[in-house]
């Protein structure tokens, strides 16, 4: 690659990081000043959060089911079938619940946010908003950020709960084992640190999904093809960021709470 091309490539990427940081920073700061668009926040909570409930329930439930099914056969070899509940609840609460919820949420909502705002960008609706005296970051980005963080937090709790319920259903319904040891080990194995870890991750994931979706939407260029590109990039980048940040938060939590 010639130096000139490398130089402009680096400038473009650093510029993009700067723009993303500015957008995310402004979106957060807007929460602490007026005007606040409460109606938009509640509308987004409905479309982003309530609209995601079915896919989150299905994902959580079948993840719990498959975890119980796979672990039951593995643990049987060591005579540790009673630990199935521990394995399912720990996996769901610490890792799979937050991450799978975030990835499903990202697939649905980062794409939705990027395409909606991207369409507004290419049809000059964002410019019209500015021309009418409204800050698009305040009107479009901040409500989506607040709604996403708020809703993903509770959706993760739902995913954890239905995942553990799914595991219970497999244990009782398919494997014909007792329910009470499963529930007991599920409950007793969870420590305070595990729950804190599981509920910290969705806050970061929600932030990533909303800001990445809005960033790609706000920077859409090139008509309908550009909207498609922005949508794809939003899902890809937010999914990768979620996994990376999940690792970093896990590392941080282990350093705070131990294993």
């Amino acid at each position: 690659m010639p130096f000139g091309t490398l130089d402009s490539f680096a400038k473009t990427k650093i510029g993009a990081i700067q723009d993303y940081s500015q957008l995310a920073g402004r979106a957060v700061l807007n929460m602490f000043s007026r005007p606040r668009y409460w109606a938009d926040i509640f509308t987004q909570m409905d479309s982003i959060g309530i609209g995601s409930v079915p896919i989150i329930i299905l994902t959580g439930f079948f993840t719990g089911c498959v975890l119980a099914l796979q672990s039951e056969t593995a643990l049987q070899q060591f005579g540790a079938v009673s630990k199935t509940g521990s394995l399912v609840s720990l996996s769901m609460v610490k890792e799979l619940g937050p991450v799978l919820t975030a990835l499903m949420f990202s697939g649905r909502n980062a794409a939705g946010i990027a395409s909606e705002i991207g369409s507004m960008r290419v049809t000059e609706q964002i410019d019209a908003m500015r021309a009418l005296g409204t800050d698009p970051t305040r009107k479009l980005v901040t409500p989506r950020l607040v709604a996403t963080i708020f809703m993903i937090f509770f959706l993760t709790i739902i995913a954890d709960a239905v995942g553990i319920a799914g595991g219970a259903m497999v244990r009782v319904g398919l494997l014909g084992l007792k329910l009470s040891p499963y529930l007991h080990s599920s409950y007793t194995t969870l420590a305070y640190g595990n729950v804190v870890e599981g509920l910290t991750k969705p806050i970061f994931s929600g932030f990533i999904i909303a800001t990445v979706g809005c960033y790609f939407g706000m920077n859409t260029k090139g008509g309908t093809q550009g909207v498609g590109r922005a949508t794809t990039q939003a899902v890809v980048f937010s999914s990768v960021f979620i996994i990376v940040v999940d690792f970093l938060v896990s590392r941080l939590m282990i350093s705070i709470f131990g294993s």
Partner: protein
Amino acid sequence: MPAAETEANPTQQPERRGPVVVFDKVSIGFEDKPVLKDISFSVERAQTLIILGPAGTGKSVLLKLANGLLKPDSGKITVFGEDVTAMPEQRLYKLRARIGMVFQESALFDSMPVSDNVAYRLHEEHVPEAEAHAAVVEVLDFVELGHAIDKYPSELSGGMRRRVSIARAIINKPDLILYDSPTGGLDPITSTTIVDLVIKQRDVSLTTSLLVTHRLQDAFTLATHRFNTAQGKVEKIPNGGIDDRTQFLVLNEGRVVFHGSTLELVRTTDPWLKEYIS
């Protein structure tokens, strides 16, 4: 105006003294490609400046610069006596309360009905709902779209969308209106309706305006017609008269090739300009 009052409200004073819009050696480019080069002109109060030029010569960019939606690479733009090139975005939002803009493709908010689109600015200013609704009805009647108040933009024709866009731009009686190709992509009959509306707005409210158009026919209609308030319709100015508040600015390859009155334009000796307007 007393000195104390002038200091308390600095944005009100300068426009009464000087031009409403001033471009001073403004240049802008995108991705190292210059679009506008050393553009200088001014627009006086109650004047209509019609901006003509071939496609891709930077006419829409010029309007966005005037509204502070884009920042120039060099030069200075003054609107109502305030330097918009140096103004932070938060202050620009306040200044834009005095500017109405009609976008090339209307740019209506497609998730809102016509009533909310038109009342958008009033809702942002927390105007009471009854008052906002009355203003919406009045302005939609002005653009003869009272029946479309509950429709969504997707249910409207191109011409209707353009008229809603005009209604949205004029609802708070702005001091400056920027029209970006208001007749672009419309059939001749609908274009005539839109031009009539622009003339009506100009003559009823005496608003300063900048209008970009590709259609020379529309430009000359604006210069040669007026709104007859008594009869409530647009008519040709008698005895071949020309509206002396209408000025023309012609751009070519990012530069101003003409700035002057209608008569000066039609009497030009510049070969390119003669061919362009013929």
